[in-house]
Every structure is written in C-alpha cells, then in structure tokens.
C-alpha cells in the first residue's frame, strides 16, 4: 500500500527525518514507538502533506503513485487519514458542517454525488454510535473547548466518517481514560479490514493490548533503529529506551 524509502525531511534547515524505510501492506497494523522528539509526528505530518516540512530526500509510493507530489487534500481524497496528536481548534465551524464539507469533497473527487441531508445524518448516527460520541459535541465549534479526550475521540469519529485506506493515529491514546481507550480501540478494530491499514504512533503498550500490531518499529533520532513484532513493545515497556539509545550510539 505504502512504501517509504530513505525518507528525509527538515524544518527550517533542521534535519528531523534522516532516512526512514517503511513498508505497509493492506490489512496490516504497524506501531511506531520512540522517545519524545524522535520524529514520529514529523513522519506522520510529512505523510499527510504538511508543507512546513521540506522533504530533502527519499521517496514515498502510495498505491504505486508518488505521494509526495500530492496536496494534502488529494492524499485525503485518496484514502490517507491523519489523527492529529494535537487536533486544531476551529472556532465557528461545527464538526457536523465540517464533516459534511469533507465527505462531499471526497465524494466529488471520486466522481460521486454529494450526500443529501438524510443520508448524511444516517451516516453520522451510525459512526457516532461506533465511537460513542455525543451529538452535542458535534454541533459545537470544532474542538473548541473540547477536553483532551474529547478531541481524540472526535479524531476517530472523523476517521470513521471518512473510512480511510491508510489511517495514521498519532498518539490517539494519550489523554484518554481507560474506558475511552477501549472505545477508541474498539472503533479502530471495527473499521479494520483486509483492504486498509493502520499506523499507530504511541508511547504505551496499553493501547497495543487492544489494537494488536503486526509490526512494531522504534524511531530514534529520525531513523527506525529497530523493527520487530508485538513483543518488541513489551520489551520496551519493561526496559525503557536506554538500551536502544546505547545500541544506536554504538552504530
């Protein structure tokens, strides 16, 4: 589905990603872990198309197409979804209106007709149930004054609405209480199919108990320094990052 080769990116001349290689196939779940500041969110943002980051080398192929050539909206229309670590507050725009515009833009890009009010509402209701989100939250200004957990839940709601092929969840688990974590993980699992893939960025084993990864990667100083299966996450939970840092220092 997506094939990242030697990806390098900088912001304001500061090198952050220093050669990332990652291959994600349909049906897979990948977890990316790593200490603060190692470049996880940067990778997620670069994949979503944030223009502040300059890609200085490498390539990203998505369904055989050069992803880096596409605008953020085109990437979204083609099925990439980023759940933000820090969702943006947008005063004066309700989630409902926002989603209606988003859904119809995506449909338009696929040559489909816009959803009418009735069908849009039906879709909303269905997805609201899936992530157990309240109607009143969706009619408020997008993320404005939402609690940390509510913002994260709203991200997953948007993901459910847009049904992406590749979902990148950047620390969607942080700020969630145990019940919310289960609900969110449950939502992600329900949306999982053999045709889509999920990349979860997390610091905690906790989430991976619910969303079981096929692969775990450790990102450190802008590089994937180690990949393994779900046991790698447990190992990290036990030992922390020191041994990874020491290993990296030796290379």
């Amino acid at each position, binding site marked *: 589905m997506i094939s990242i080769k030697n990806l390098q990116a900088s912001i304001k001349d500061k090198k952050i990603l220093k050669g990332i290689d990652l291959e994600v196939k349909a049906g897979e779940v990948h977890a990316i872990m790593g200490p603060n500041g190692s470049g996880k969110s940067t990778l997620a943002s670069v994949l979503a198309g944030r223009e502040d980051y300059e890609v200085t080398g490498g390539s990203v192929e998505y369904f055989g197409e050069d992803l880096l050539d596409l605008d953020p909206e085109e990437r979204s229309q083609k099925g990439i979804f980023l759940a933000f670590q820090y969702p943006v507050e*947008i005063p004066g725009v309700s989630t409902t209106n926002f*989603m209606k515009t988003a859904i119809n833009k995506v449909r338009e890009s696929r040559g489909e007709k816009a959803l009418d009010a009735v069908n849009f509402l039906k879709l909303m209701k269905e997805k609201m149930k899936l992530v157990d989100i309240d109607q009143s939250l969706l009619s408020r200004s997008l993320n404005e004054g939402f609690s940390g957990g509510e913002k994260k839940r709203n991200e997953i709601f948007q993901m459910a609405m847009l049904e992406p092929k590749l979902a990148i969840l950047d620390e969607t688990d942080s700020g969630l209480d145990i019940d919310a974590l289960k609900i969110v993980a449950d939502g992600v699992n329900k949306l999982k199919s053999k045709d889509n893939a999920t990349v979860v960025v997390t610091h905690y084993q906790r989430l991976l108990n619910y969303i079981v990864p096929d692969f775990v990667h450790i990102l450190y100083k802008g590089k994937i320094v180690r990949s393994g299966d779900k046991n790698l996450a447990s190992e990290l939970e036990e030992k922390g990052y020191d041994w990874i840092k020491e290993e990296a220092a030796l290379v």
Partner: protein
Amino acid sequence: MIEEYNMLRSFEHLINDNPSSKEAWKMLTEIGLPHKKSEAYKFTPIAPILEKNINWSLEPKNTFDEKQLYSVKGSHFVFVNGILNENLSRTQPDVSFIIEEVREGRHDPFSLLNTSLASNELVITSGTASPIFIYHFNSTGISSPRIRIKIKSGESIQLVEKLLETNKNTFTNSFIHFEVAENAFACHTKVQNYGNSNYSHETVVADVENNGHFYNNTFSFESALTRNNLIINLNGQNCEGHMYGLFLLDKKSHIDNNTTVDHLQPNSFSNELYKGILDEKSTGVFNGKIYVRQDAQKTNAFQSNNNILLSKDATLHTKPQLEIWADDVKCSHGCTSGQLDEYAIFYLRTRGIDRNTAEAMLLHAFAKETLEQVRLETVKDEVLGLIDQKLL
C-alpha cells in the same frame, strides 16, 4: 481650504431656502470640509477624492427596481436621490410618519452639508410590530437623505437600511437620527454593497434615554469610498449600545468606520465588535471611541476589532480610543490583525477539503460572529450570501 471651498461652490445653488439650512451652510463655509490634515479623516481624505471623482451635474436616471425590495412584511420607504417617494413606498398602518422641514443637526462638516442640502426630513414615529425598511436609489451627483426615527417609550423597532447606488460617480451624504426613549429598543442594520465608483458618507446618530437599547449592525462589502460615522449617546442610566460591523473588502474598496459611544450617566453598557477581511488593494479603517463621562460610574464598555489581511497590498488602520473621566468603570478593548491560521488550513485539508474551500470556511466562521444580532432572517441570509459570494 481654498480647494475645498471650490468644491462647496458647486453645491451653492442647491442650498435650501430655510433658516436651518442657510445657517448650516454658513457654518460649513466657515469650517470647510475636512482637508488633508484633518485628524478625523486622516486615512480617508474624502474631500479631495470627491472633488476629483464626483460628477456633480449627473443626470438622474430612473432606476427604481421593485425587485430590490425585501419581500418581508413591513413598511418599505423608498428614497430616490435623497427624497422620499411616497408613491413607491408601501407602509403598514402601525407606522406613522411625517415630512418636516429640516432642522438644525450636528455641527461636523458632513452633517452641516446634509442640513444645507436635504430639503426635508422624514420623521417616523413608531413602535411597530413589523420591521421598517428604508431604500435609497441614488443616481445623482449628490444625494442627501435625512431621516429621524422616534421610538416611543416601551416600544421597539427593527430597521434595515440599504443604499442602492444606481449610477456611476455618485456621492451620498446621509444622516439618520434615532431617538430612543426610555425603555425603548431599536435595531438598525445596514448593508453596504456599492459599485467601484460610488462614494458615500453616512452618519448614524442615536440618542438613548434611561433603560433604552440601541443596536447597529453595519455590513460593508464594496465601495469606492465609504465613511461611516456612528455616534451613540447613552444619555440615560442603564442604557445599552451595541455596535457590530463587518467589512469584507477587495479590489480598491475603501471603508472607514468611525464609531463613538458616549457614556453620560451611571450603569450603562456598550459592546462593540468589528471585523475586517481585506483582500487585494482594499483599505479598511476602524476608529472606535469610547467616552466615559465623570457621572457615568459603573460603566461597562467593551470593544474589539479583529482583522484578517489576505493580501500584501491591502491596508488596515485600526485605532481604539478610550477617554475615561469616571473612576469606577470596566472597560476593555483589543484589536488584532493577522493572516489565516495555516495550521488550521492544513487540518481541514487533511480531511479532503481543498485550500480555497478551507480558507472560505475559516473566513466565513470569522465573519459570521458579527451577524449575531441580526434578527431578520431574510437580511441575515442576504448578508451570509454576500459573504459567500465574496469568499468563494
């Protein structure tokens, strides 16, 4: 001074033959129109601009268009070239009005000019259940509509005013005065969307007595040059004055909003929210004055002006001005100007929304806040429509 006086000479033959007009004219020729160094018109040097651009001897056109009237039940007053046309107007029985000889008005230059040239004054006495609409179809070099609205104690009105410039190189110098009696309520909404060769100077004065409330909503879209002078005198206690404005400009439009709220007695409240969106080579000016007189203890006065500049060639001048003589007051003001939030645009784009739509969504949300007090759905929809038309 000489160049302004030359311009005044072009009006001389139009001066009314009544004592108030003659007196106003005499004062005006003494003080002159604002010149290049006039502080109050610093960013809007209106007199030389008018002198250069207005065709004072423009032949009026017959341009009344029924379709321009709001299809809302209410009283519709139609002015043509500054004069009420009773044949074209349609009024409800709950509104009473008379035409009076113009009386002394304010003493600033454009008010004096209005008093000199306005032949009569429409005086509407009302508290009405249905809204009042006033339209100005202007096609001559200068039009000077003059209106007074008396809202009696305990009554309330909604008044919508719309200027339709129907010829090129016109100038409208309007003057409307609200007398808001005790416990009365008035809401005045203006929609300004003219052509790029139309000029106007529009004065709105409200005198508010005890427990009276006055609202003004001013929505400005296109004009060669428009100066809005809004003056609210909170003469009584427990009065409220609310000022909402939006200027959404492109091309070379120039809008100057000059507002004054004067707190004279204790326990009054004023609130002001003006928002500007400036694109292309437009110019927006906001100057908001708040006066709190010595007797006006326990005044609450809030003001904010927020602006978004979409182009490097757009110009914004914003200036709050607080003058407070009382000691027990709560006042705040703030102005911001900046660009659209790129991170917010990115967020919307990651959901499949293209940049143009994302920008329009953010600007629409930004602008919409100024419509909060527009109660008439038809007018609200019209303004929202104009916003979208400009943004998309």
